[in-house]
């Protein structure tokens, strides 16, 4: 059969997909929400870093120094709660009302001035991992700084043997908004590509329309390819919008790298993710089944992709396994391009891996689909 007809079939079946999508108001609405408002909420809600960390102080000293320390816990990094008593510490921490509770003992100021080196107690809710560790470091620094300022030691005396000058590349203030916004886009793209393609394929079978298609001179390959391009187009547009409008204009994030290179990568990722969705559609027999399968595959793929915690610290086995997940490479090149402004030379390997993964997945889906179609 001539391939001109093949392309025509793929084109028109894709147009059909777009029309179907266009008729589903709730679905479209959710897609738009996810890439605009939802993105905005996630990006601006706060961060893993120390912002609005809830701290309470038990001040038994009520001295000038203790007040000075209290006043140093400023927003946005800290959220200082009204003063509490020693008895309120445990219930408050149990309920999770405070992440940090600082206890300033009696005669603290006096002891400091007398050079007795008194001890402050800092209680940390260590179940809140992300804040507990870094937060207590900051708090220590703040306390030492304030005490030093109070006793008016000359800066030379406080001078360290060697000092450290920290320079953060690509994100000078280590802003979580930047990071979260980009990672949110990344995970939305994956989610959408898998769900839309997978369920669009499954729906044809559930509604009985597949049977009609297969009696016409249409091959399974064409059906799959048509879903691929139409869904990729929709998601690509959404991605382009959210990077160029939401990231750059609304959230004011200075995206470094080339948008075109990023979108080229997104396209490869869409190919792989959508193919994965189609593999799932050939495994599942009904929409509820594909729903659970999606979660089973999606959640680990997103969480272990390196987008939430760095892959370096994961067990070896998981790291190898995750090489077969498109999200790993996607996250890798997204961070490289959008944050570090990396060029093709830095991401070509991720691109290649994604392409190979996509080909493999598409092939599996194609074989399975062909078998189930006849």
């Amino acid at each position: 059969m001539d391939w001109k007809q093949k392309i025509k079939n793929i084109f028109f079946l894709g147009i059909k997909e777009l029309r179907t999508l266009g008729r589903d108001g709730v679905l479209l609405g959710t897609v738009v929400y996810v890439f605009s408002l939802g993105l905005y909420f996630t990006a601006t809600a706060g961060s893993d870093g120390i912002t609005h960390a809830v701290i309470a102080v038990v001040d038994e000293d009520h001295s000038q120094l203790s007040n000075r320390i209290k006043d140093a816990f400023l927003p946005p990094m800290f959220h200082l709660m009204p003063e509490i008593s020693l008895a309120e510490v445990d219930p408050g921490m149990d309920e999770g009302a405070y992440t940090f509770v600082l206890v300033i003992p009696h005669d603290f100021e006096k002891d400091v001035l007398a050079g007795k080196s008194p001890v402050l107690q800092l209680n940390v809710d260590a179940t809140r991992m992300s804040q507990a560790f870094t937060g207590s470091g900051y708090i220590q620094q703040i306390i030492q700084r304030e005490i030093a300022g109070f006793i008016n030691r000359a800066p030379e005396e406080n001078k360290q043997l060697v000092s450290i000058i920290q320079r953060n590349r690509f994100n000078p203030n280590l802003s979580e908004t930047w990071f979260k916004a980009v990672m949110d886009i990344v995970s939305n793209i994956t989610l959408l590509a898998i769900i839309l393609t997978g369920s669009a394929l499954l729906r044809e079978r559930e509604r009985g329309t597949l049977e009609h298609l297969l009696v016409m001179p249409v091959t399974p390959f064409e059906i799959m390819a048509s879903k691929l391009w139409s869904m990729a187009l929709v998601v690509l547009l959404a991605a382009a919008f959210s990077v160029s409008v939401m990231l750059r204009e609304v959230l004011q994030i200075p995206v470094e790298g080339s948008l075109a290179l990023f979108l080229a990568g997104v396209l490869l990722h869409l190919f792989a993710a959508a193919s994965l969705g189609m593999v799932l559609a050939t495994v599942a027999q009904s929409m509820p089944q594909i729903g659970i399968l999606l979660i089973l595959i999606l959640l680990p793929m997103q969480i272990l992709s390196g987008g939430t915690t760095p892959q370096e610290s994961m067990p070896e086995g998981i790291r190898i396994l995750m090489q077969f997940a498109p999200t790993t490479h996607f996250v890798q090149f997204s961070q490289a391009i959008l944050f570090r402004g990396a060029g093709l030379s830095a991401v070509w390997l991720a691109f290649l891996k994604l392409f190979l993964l996509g080909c493999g997945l598409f092939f599996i889906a194609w074989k399975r689909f062909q078998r189930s179609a006849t």
Partner: protein
Amino acid sequence: MEKEKNFRQNNPAVTIKDVCHFYRKQMALDHISMAIPTGLQTGLIGPDGVGKSTLLSLITGARKIQNGSIEVLHGNIADAAFRREVCPRIAYMPQGLGKNLYFTLTVEENLQFFARLFGNSKEERRRRIDDLTRSTGLYPFLDRPAGKLSGGMKQKLGLCCALIHDPDLLVLDEPTTGVDPLARRQFWDLINRIRSDHPLLTVIVATAYMDEAQHFDHLFAMDDGRVLAEGSPAELMKKTGTTVLDEAFIQLLPESKKAGHRTITVPPLPPPDGSPPAIQAEGLTKKFGSFTAVDHVDFQIQQGEIFGFLGSNGCGKTTTMRMLTGLLPPTSGQSFLFGEKMTGLDIQARRKLGYMTQSFSLYDELTLRQNLQLCARLCMMEERQIPERVREVLHFFHLEEVADTYPESLPMGIRQRLSLAAAVIHRPRILILDEPTSGVDPVARDNFWELLIALSRQDKVTIFITTHFMNEALRCDRISLMHAGRSLACGTAPELIRAQKANTLEEAFIRYLEKAAPDEAIPEKDHADTPPAPPPNGKRKPFSFMRWYSCFLRENLELLRDPIRLVLAVFGALILLLVIGYGANMDVDDLSFAVLDRDRSAESSNYINNLAGSRYFIEQKPIRDYFDLDRRMRDGKVNMVLEFPPGFGKKLQRGESPAISVWLDGAMPSRARTIQGYITGMHSTWLREKQQENPAASPRPPADVEIRYRYNPDIQSLPAMVPAEIPILLMVIPAILAALSVVREKELGSITNLYVTPLTRTEFLLGKQIPYLLFAFASSLLLLLEAYWLFDITVKGSLAALLTAMGLYCICSTGLGLLFSSLTKSQIAVLFLAIIGTIIPTVQFCGLTQPVQSLTGAGKFIGTIYPASPMLIICRGVLNKSLTFAQLHTPFLELILMAAVIVVLGILLQKKQAS
């Protein structure tokens, strides 16, 4: 007699006054007024799409009335309170092949479900089910899943479901569409029997079969949303001066509609010209497991022949057709199209085929015109011919007016015509049509046959057709009679009639069947000794345990029928806990760093060795210059670079306090911050060591800060992460399952049961929710066990508190799923919505990584009202902090409140009527 008639006329069962109905801008009913007499069988006849189904759905209260009023059984059906009360007295069977059935459930379970909805006792249910299934021939199939029944058998089951209680008003929308003649006869016998037991039963039927309408008491002929004529069949025939109702019906139609209609004649088939047969089947056999659907069927059909395929429902007609089209590989035997063997992947052969499936298989999301264009294109028509051809076909099937509407809003007859149009659009050489005229009105049917005959005789198109209409079968060149997978007889109609010494084809057909299977064909008529049924539970309770239980049981059965879903759902959560618990480690190590040492002194290497020796850092090859630094950081090869300035060692010795530059990759802020923490710690250790070498330089600090890491003294990831994961897993999967369970019914059509049975929204939704709630709770227990065995996380606090919270939380998660389900009727949309609506809030806004108090903006608001937040506090409280109810008042109260709000909102937002 006259008195009785008067009584009936004066006490109509249904009074319709001035009712209008619009679909968007299209008028479906145009100021209709009618009175339907009590205790009679009333028929609505008329072409497709004139508003019959709309009228019926308004009468039963399934659809909201827009204009006018309808009184049903002496009450206003628009009144919700009355509707609730009268609902058990009405039985409604909507149109479409088994649309209101549950396909994974068996025939028996489907019937039990409906019987329970009407509050019948156990014995009563048994009696009724046996009675109904015996009289419709479904009795041998009680254990078969409804989805595996043939189209006609589904229709019969739908009927049984409608008749399972004793209604006062029975509303049937094209009940016998696609049902074979024998079963049709049995069906009407059954209705008559019920009527004789129940003299006041009013039956309203919309039908396309005029031979059925002939036996009705009263008829309304409808067209274009209006009533054309009313009266008994005899009166109508008298009025139009005809002797057959079929003709009377055509006479009643306005001129424009009957234009060109004439009696159909079939020119004789020319003798075979020696070319290979168009279709040939040799020993075609298909087995599904132990069940033989088609058993060694042979036939040869010559080019241009119209070959009719007749048979009872479920005898293997559709399976045979599917094998001929290549959709289904035969178990044994083979088929040929134009002498070439048919295989599944033969594209060229498919080009010559036009196939119409029994149930609608075009796209609801495309307009009629778009559907036809798509088919034409896929069938490789030339692009420039398509517009003309589409116009031609639309015109021929009288679809021009609705060309730009969507099929989902159209009546079955018109959808059938569209399917036909799609099958012929590319001028195929062979047409395979599976009950193409079921549910199509007589005029359209005759038009369609004219086309078929023209195609066959002029263009030599071969036509393979199944039908239940005997007058259509008579028009076929040859007929094959099928039963139970075998071909009983094959020949021309007169030959078959002669062979059975019958008068009509229908008679011959029935005799063949009775001979083939004497037990099945004769319905048992031993109803004389069954006691009259007690009246249905008259008082209608706002919440019926029985109805709820029926829903609950059905949902459970559906879940159990799908073990894959169940296993995936339970083990899925366990696997996820494992993977995420191990994988999403917050402890960061094996960080790569490199050094730009522009000093190369003993001091700088001492510092570097200190760093490289730790478990957190792995040293990469040194950086050459700033360009190299930039490149390697951009490529993500190094996370951190230490830069020692020239003269670092000397300055250090002189006490000049030199500075080391630390370059961090900020692309991932959390990692950068962790590195920062590590480096600060190691730097101060290094400083202390240096100071110990030289104690004079180290003053005592003015104060110390003692840090107590509570609840997780070793600050490990696992004890903090696992309790936090439980709320995520218990939210996402149950919500998705619950949401899909409702939307699935909307998409596949069985939601009608909510609209037309006494089932209330509360019963329906709680019946849905509780199975998923139980499942979710069971999986939460498994999660706890897993956390204990694999991660060594014990319940330090009160187990009772944790279990209570889990129960409440599962109510929230399943309830949220039901809430999502009220927003859409598309499964894809609800799946996406449920994933977005659960994962994002639970992961981002509910305290997993950051306490809700630390959030800002909309995120904080969502975190405050989302049930995962209190659940996380309780989980961590009990698992990490050894708490009991006493310390957890606030989160418990929040959780209870949220559960109540979610469930009530879910019920209120679900619709009880179609709009």
